């Protein structure tokens, strides 16, 4: 693992999705409203709501971006702009280098049939189809023969742990099971880009936890570019490679969980992080400094700690280790950073300001 301080990881490949100054304004005259909002960002225009407010961001291949915001912050609208369920009012969105807004209807449908999958908050299942037929729906739209799509749907249901329930109709299943169908359906076409719009918000806390674990399992297995929407900060911290925090249609900060906790960009972001048990979130690398920056005389030899783990999971070692500076090793065992023990203990004990 590399130092997570750099904002977008690995800039060698072009981003999968790239947003440039994207606006989405609802109302009768969005164009005029945007002009006024550009002049005065705080203007309120009668009959218009700016749900996405001048958003620019890049999403890299294989990355998982969590978009976090409270209800009405525009996060769901943003993800609908990325999948062009909503047309944007201004700006441009490039998906694998192609301008999304300029795709014809047929091209857009083709893109969705091959590249994109989406999971919805209230599942969006068809009540008249059983689990199997729901999962096979996108394949059916694509015109695949019945036998092939049923076989594939069976496979997907097994993947999400619903084997034996293929004949059940959505209303006969629990919320968690319904969302498993939704996930299986979104994965049926083997999409490269996977959108999840608050997939676990409608579920009970225990089921939600279980589904998050399930999701992490799938994520590790499938290696997809993931855009995950949530209003739950804990969920965001638990799942994300990077988090974008939204408020009133604007992206307040887009960064790794460690950086969001350590260096909140705005007052609003700071309020979110205030009550967080940082030791659970921060990885040792998040506090690490380059070995040569450590003041002379410090002991740099001895056993290294794995830098990719959270401070909480390293707690016992940190308390027992007597060194002021502790070397941190990456997955290959190479020491790449040094951790100041006192600072780590402060965070662990909750004394850090």
């Amino acid at each position: 693992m590399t130092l997570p301080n750099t904002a977008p990881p690995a800039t060698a490949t072009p981003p999968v999705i790239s947003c440039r100054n994207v606006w989405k304004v609802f109302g009768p005259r969005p164009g005029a409203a945007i002009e006024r909002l550009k002049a005065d960002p705080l203007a309120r225009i009668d009959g218009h709501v700016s749900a996405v407010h001048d958003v620019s961001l890049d999403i890299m291949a294989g990355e998982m971006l969590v978009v976090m915001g409270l209800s009405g912050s525009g996060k769901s609208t943003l993800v609908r702009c990325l999948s062009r369920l909503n047309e944007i009012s201004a700006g441009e969105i490039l998906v694998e280098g192609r301008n999304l807004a300029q795709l014809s209807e047929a091209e857009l449908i083709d893109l969705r049939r091959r590249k994109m999958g989406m999971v919805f908050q209230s599942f969006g299942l068809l009540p008249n189809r059983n689990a199997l037929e729901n999962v096979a729906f996108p394949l059916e739209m694509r015109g695949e023969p019945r036998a092939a799509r049923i076989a594939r749907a069976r496979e997907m249901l097994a993947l999400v742990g619903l084997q034996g329930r293929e004949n059940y109709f959505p209303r006969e299943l629990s919320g968690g099971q319904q969302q498993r169908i939704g996930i299986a359906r979104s994965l049926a076409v083997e999409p490269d880009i996977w959108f999840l719009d608050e997939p676990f918000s409608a579920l009970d806390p225990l089921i939600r936890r279980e589904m998050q674990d399930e999701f992490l399992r799938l994520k590790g297995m499938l290696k997809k570019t993931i855009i995950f929407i949530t209003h739950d900060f804990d969920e965001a911290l638990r799942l994300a490679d990077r988090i974008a925090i939204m408020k009133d249609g604007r992206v307040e900060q887009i960064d790794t969980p460690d950086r969001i906790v350590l260096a909140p960009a705005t007052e609003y972001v700071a309020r979110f992080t205030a009550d967080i048990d940082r030791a659970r979130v921060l990885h040792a690398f998040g506090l690490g400094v380059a070995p040569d920056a450590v003041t002379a005389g410090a002991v740099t030899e001895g056993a290294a700690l794995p830098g990719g783990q959270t401070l909480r999971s390293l707690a016992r070692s940190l308390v027992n280790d007597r060194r002021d500076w502790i070397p941190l090793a990456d997955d290959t065992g190479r020491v790449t950073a040094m951790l100041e023990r006192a600072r780590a203990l402060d965070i662990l004990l909750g004394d850090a300001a």
Partner: protein
Amino acid sequence: MSMTDQIRLPKSAPRPQIAMLLIGLAAVLVLTRAALPEGLIRPPDWLILPFADWVNTVFTFLRDDLGLMALTRAFAGMVEWLLDVTANILYGKSRWPRLGPLPWSVVAITMAALGAWLGGWRLAVLAGGTFTWIAVMGQWQWAMETLSVIAVAAPFSIVTGLLLGIAAWRFRLVARVLDPVLNIAQSLPHFAYMIPVVVFIGVGPKAGAIVTIIFSVPPMIRMTALGLAKVPDEVVEAGRMGGATPFQLLRKVRLPTARTEILVGVNQVIMQCLAMVVLASFIGMPGLGQKLLQLLQALKIGLSVEIGITIVLIAVVLDRLTRAWAMRQPQHHAGGLRWWQRHPVLLAWALAVVLAFALAQIFPILAQVPRREALSIAAPIDLVMDQVIRLVDPLTTWLRWFLITWVLIPLRDAIQFLPFSAILLAVAAAGWAIGGWRSALVVGGFIALIAVSGWWDRAMITVYMVGFSVCLAALIGFPLGIWAARGEARAQRMLLICDTLQTFPSFIYLIPVVMLFGVNDVAVVMAVVTFAAVPLIRYTTLGLRGVAPELIEAAQMSGATRRQLLWQVQLPMALPVMMVGVNQSVMFSLFMVIIAAFIGTQDLGQELQRALSASDVGKGMVLGLAVAFLGLAVDHLIRSWSRNRAA
């Protein structure tokens, strides 16, 4: 919300002062009636516009010059061909395909199987039993004549309604045009539909079928558009993300998801068809309705009760079957079952039908029950009814005398004494008080149109019949509804009774009142009262049961007595729902007054019947619209009231 929004007043705010002023003016007009010029008392002749002639001109143009006649005749020809097919299969009319008639036992088994499949054994017994009853009572021919028309008309209405509903949902312009048309269409009395059909197509089964099709389309359009609009956004988005084209989205996502609403529309279409087919006997439609009409006119009570029971049973069976279909939820089968294990009802049906066909060859009684072998309960009914009527005769005679001398005649005289200008002002005042100048204009406009149509006096007779009947219905309906709402089980039972009563074709309500009161005004009022009380009971019960339990608990914890609870909390909260009942009640009474006209009233209904027998389209349309406008005026007032209350 910006400042300007808060300062700007609603454009049409209710203004009690102006309403009071208008009422005052109306009162002055009434008090100074003696001194008023004649033109303010009755609509003067120069004010009356020849609407009927205009309508007739348009119709003549459509019929003769545009050649619409050829088109309608062609359509009628196709409908007739289809009617012949169903008639042959159901009761053996000798037409192509010359297969029928089906043995009655086969039809009864099929209906029972449908019942079993859709709703379990109770529905199977009800459906199978109904058709057995029809056969055993020797009414098979008439009932099949009626059903053969429904079998043709309903699919036509369903397909037309579905297409128009999709168009209304998809194109806002279509919705904007259709909405007022549907509003008027749904408040036009049945007879108004029949006259143009008689002109274009003539009388007989095909005219009956076509009028049935036209009459039953509106609810299908409404329910389809509603169902499509109610499909959850996320389901549609999921379909779009699945890569569905717009057409795939409609066919595979939206329509299946709107299934329940669309099937409720189908239920309404079939019930409307039945109501209309029964009434279409007035334009020569054979079947149960015609038999009932003849028997009622001949005052053959026992036989008309028999027919009445059949119509009611058919109504209940059709309603329950289609409703069960609409509410049916998909259910999975256990894995690994054979085809015949998954469809036991289908298998049983096939076996039973084959058996019935075979047995019918051996025992002809299973194919057809000849008239002379049919049972009849007419004689005992007549016997019992004679006794009952003799017993209650003093009461009904007194009631009749009392109602006519002390209520109906004084009321009619009073309403005819009022100058029309005063009534117009009072109506406008009501509009102003409820919905501001806009409502005053709308409601006043409806009533003014009636004044200039030349049917003012007749319309006022209709108004007093409806007004009095609804008041009487309220005296029965509200207390009954309040009583029923006292307990959950009781409310459920009452709602079931009301729902069942509402499925009966309105014609049925005439049987008991003619039995008890004979053929006169009082019988009409009694039929209307019974018919109009049903929605009042229903919505009062619904409204009271719908009050939030926390609210009632909060009132109880504040120490409210049962009476206080009812008057201070439950009734005010339930009022909007109860007003929906009042609205429906007014509509029902208008329809009923018109239908009841054939047993003798002097209102718009009687004139409509005359227009029907003279095939006078212009007069028929004007009269029909006059009735519709009365209904729409009340509808507008009640709706504006609910809207203002909600705001």
